[in-house]
C-alpha cells in the first residue's frame, strides 16, 4: 500500500490547472495543414463546356484535361484566445504560367459568447446547403454537383458576417443568417454598398438508434444584383469584348438531407452515406450585352432548379464506392430570346444531367487516391470523363465534420 501511494505521487502530474492542450496538436504553434491535390483528366469530347439555361461564373467549368494541379491549399488555424478562433486558407494556383495566391477563407469566430451563439466575421464558406461549408477536399467526388456549378460557381464564398444560434433543444436545431458583400458570383456587384447579399438557414439533426445519424437543412440566399458578368466573348478577334451582364433580383432556396449509417456507430470498418440537395433560383431583371453598341438589352425572368442524389459506401476499411446523379432544369423568358441565348440562358430544350461513379482508397486519414468516371450530359454533346486524383494532407489532423 505504501509503495502504491508513493507511486501515485510519481504519476500525478503537477498540472492541476484548467489548461488543456491535448485537443490540439502542439502547445504554441497554430495548426498548420497543407493539402496537395493532383489530377489526371480525360474527356471524350473537346467542345466548349456549357450548361444551357444557366449563366456560368465563379469557378464553374469542366476540370482540366491531362495532368494538372488541383486545389493546393495552405491553411492555418487556432484558438486565438479564450474568446476567438481564427482561420486563414490560401489556395495556390497557376493561371497562364504565373503562380497566384487566392484567399479562400480568412475569418475569426467567437468561442465564448455563450447561449449557443456563434458569430463569424471575414471571408468564409456560406452555411447554405450541406456541401457548401465543406472544403472541396472533403467532398466525396472530385467536382461539385452540377447544381452548385450552375448556381454558385461551384461554391458560395463571400466576405461578411455570420451569426447562428444553436437552440437549446434535445435534437440539434440551429438557425442562422449571414449578411455578405455580394461582390462575387453569383451576386457579382450588388446595388448596395458592399453588403448586398443575405442568407438564412435552419438545420435539424439527430441520431436514430446507435447506428444512424441524420441532418436536414433549409436555406435561402438573395441579392439585388447590379451587373453580374458571365463569361465573355468577342464576335471577331481583336474587336471589343461584349459581356452578358445581369441586373435584378436573385433568390435561391434549397433543402438538403443527409443520412449516415455505420454498424453500432463504428464507421471504421463499413459505413454508408446518402445525401441529397435541391435548389431553386428565381431571377427577375434585365440582361444587357455590356460593350455592345448600340446597347443590346432584354428583360429576363428565370427559374432554374437542380438537384443531386449521391450515396457513398465504404465496403471494407480504406475503400469506398460512390454513385451520384445530377439533374438541372431551367425555364427562362425575356423580350429578346437571341440575347438570352448569348447569355447562356437558353435551355436549348435540354435538361442537363450527369451520372458519376467513383472508387477511392485512403491509405491513412492523410492520403486518398480516387478514380472517377462520369457520363456528362451537361449540354447536347454527351461526354465521358475519367479522372484520377490524389489528395494528401500534411500537418494538422483534419476535423471529421458530419
Amino acid at each position, binding site marked *: *500500500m505504501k509503495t*502504491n501511494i508513493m*507511486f*501515485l505521487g510519481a*504519476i*500525478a*502530474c503537477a*498540472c*492541476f490547472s*484548467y*489548461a*488543456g*492542450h*491535448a*485537443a*490540439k*496538436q*502542439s502547445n504554441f504553434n497554430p495548426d498548420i495543414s497543407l493539402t496537395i491535390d493532383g489530377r489526371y483528366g480525360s474527356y471524350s469530347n473537346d467542345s466548349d463546356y456549357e450548361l444551357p439555361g444557366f449563366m456560368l461564373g465563379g469557378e464553374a467549368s469542366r476540370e482540366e484535361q491531362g495532368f494538372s494541379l488541383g486545389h493546393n491549399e495552405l491553411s492555418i488555424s487556432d484558438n486565438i484566445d*479564450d474568446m476567438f*478562433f481564427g482561420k486563414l486558407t490560401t489556395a495556390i494556383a497557376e493561371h497562364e504560367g504565373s503562380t497566384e495566391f487566392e484567399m479562400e477563407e480568412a475569418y475569426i469566430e*467567437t*468561442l*465564448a*459568447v*455563450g*447561449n*449557443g*451563439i*456563434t458569430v463569424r466575421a471575414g471571408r468564409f464558406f456560406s452555411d447554405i446547403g450541406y456541401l457548401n461549408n465543406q472544403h472541396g477536399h472533403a467532398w466525396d467526388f472530385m467536382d461539385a454537383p452540377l447544381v452548385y456549378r450552375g448556381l454558385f460557381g461551384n461554391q458560395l464564398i463571400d466576405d461578411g458576417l455570420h451569426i*447562428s444560434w*444553436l*437552440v*437549446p*433543444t*434535445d*435534437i*440539434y*436545431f*440551429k438557425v442562422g443568417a449571414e449578411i455578405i458583400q455580394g461582390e462575387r458570383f453569383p451576386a457579382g456587384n450588388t446595388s448596395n454598398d458592399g453588403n448586398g447579399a443575405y442568407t438564412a438557414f435552419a438545420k435539424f*439533426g*439527430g*441520431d436514430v438508434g446507435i447506428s444512424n*445519424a*441524420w441532418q436536414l437543412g433549409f436555406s435561402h440566399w438573395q441579392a439585388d444584383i447590379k451587373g453580374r458578368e458571365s463569361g465573355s466573348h468577342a464576335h471577331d478577334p481583336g474587336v471589343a469584348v461584349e459581356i452578358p451582364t445581369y441586373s435584378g433580383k436573385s433568390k435561391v432556396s434549397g433543402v438538403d438531407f443527409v443520412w*449516415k449509417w455505420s454498424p*453500432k*456507430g*463504428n464507421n*471504421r*470498418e463499413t459505413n454508408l452515406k446518402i445525401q441529397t440537395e435541391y435548389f431553386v433560383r428565381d431571377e427577375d431583371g434585365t440582361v444587357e450585352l455590356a460593350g455592345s453598341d448600340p446597347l443590346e438589352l432584354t428583360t429576363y425572368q428565370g427559374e432554374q432548379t437542380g438537384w443531386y442524389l449521391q450515396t457513398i459506401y465504404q465496403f471494407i*476499411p480504406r475503400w469506398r464506392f460512390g454513385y451520384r446523379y445530377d439533374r438541372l432544369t431551367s425555364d427562362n423568358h425575356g423580350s429578346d430570346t437571341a440575347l438570352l441565348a448569348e447569355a447562356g440562358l437558353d435551355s436549348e430544350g435540354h435538361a442537363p444531367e450527369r451520372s458519376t461513379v467513383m472508387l477511392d482508397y485512403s*491509405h*491513412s*486519414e492523410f492520403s486518398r487516391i480516387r478514380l472517377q468516371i462520369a457520363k456528362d450530359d451537361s449540354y447536347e454533346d454527351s461526354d465521358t470523363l475519367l479522372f484520377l486524383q490524389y489528395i494528401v494532407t500534411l500537418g494538422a*489532423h*483534419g*476535423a*471529421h*465534420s*458530419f
Partner: protein
Amino acid sequence: MLKITRIISVFFMLLSSTQVTANINVFACEPEWASLANEIGGKRLSSYTATTAYQDPHHIEARPSLIAKIRNADLVICSGAELEAGWLPLLLRRAGNSKIVPGKKGYFEASEMVSRLDIPIEINRSMGDVHISGNPHVHLDPRRILIISEALLARLIAIDPDGTKHYQQHFDDFSQRWQEAMALWQQQAEVLNGLRIVVHHRDWVYLFDWLGIEIAGALEPRPGLPATAQHLISLKQALKTNPAKMIVHTIYQNPRAAQRLSQITNTPVVALPYTVGGSEQVGDLFDLFSVTIEKLKGAL
C-alpha cells in the same frame, strides 16, 4: 403580442422538456469518464456519453446530436492527449458554449492530470497516428484513475461549490472502495506479471504498465494503420524466438487480424472490454478491471 410570446415560450419549453435538472451537466467523451463522474457527482450530476465501447474514440464524427448535447454541458470530460483531435475541437467550436472552452473550468482532460507513457521524442506522420502528448488511454491504470478522480473532485467543487460536502463524501467513499479493489486486483493479477502479450493497438500500455505485462508486438504496423499480411508474417517470425501468451483486442477493433495471427502462431485471442459497456458484465469502472483481469487469466 403577449399571446405570441406565450406560444413561443411554450414551444421552447416543450422542446427542452427532457432536460434534466441536475446541478452539473457532464458531457463525457468516453464511457469511462461518465462512470467516474457519476461515482463522485452522484445525484447532483447528470452525464451524457458521446461514444460507446463499440466505437473507436479516435474516429468519431462531429454529429448533430453531439453538438446539441455539448451545447448544454457545464463540464466536458475527455481523455485528451489528442485522442479526440479529429472531432472534439469541432464540437467545442460549434457548441457556442462559453463554459467549456479549453482553459476554463468546464473543460477537463483526464490525461492532463497524470504522467503519460509513450511520449515520442521525435514525431512525424510516417510513424502513424502518434500523439505528441503521449499515449491517451490512461483510464486503464487504476492508479491513474485515482489521481484523476481527485482532480475531478476539485473541479466539481469549483463548478458547484454548494455541493462541496456532497462531492467530498462521494469521493471519500469511492476512493476507499477503489483502493481496496486495487489491492484485490493486484493480488488476483500476480500470475500475469512478466507475461508477453500481442496487442492490436497500443491501447493497453497503462494496464500493462500497472500489471507488469510486456507488449510482445502490435497488429497495427503503425498506430492507426490496419494490419497487413506482411506485417503478420514478420510478427510470427519475432514470436518464434520470443513467444507471447495471448493476443488482445478491443470490441471495436476488427478481430480478423488477431484471429489470423492466432491461426499461424497457435496463440489464443482475447477480446477485452476496454471501457465501461465493453461487455455485458461491465457496468462501471470496478467491473472493467475485474472482468479484464478475469479474461486475461482465463486465457492462460
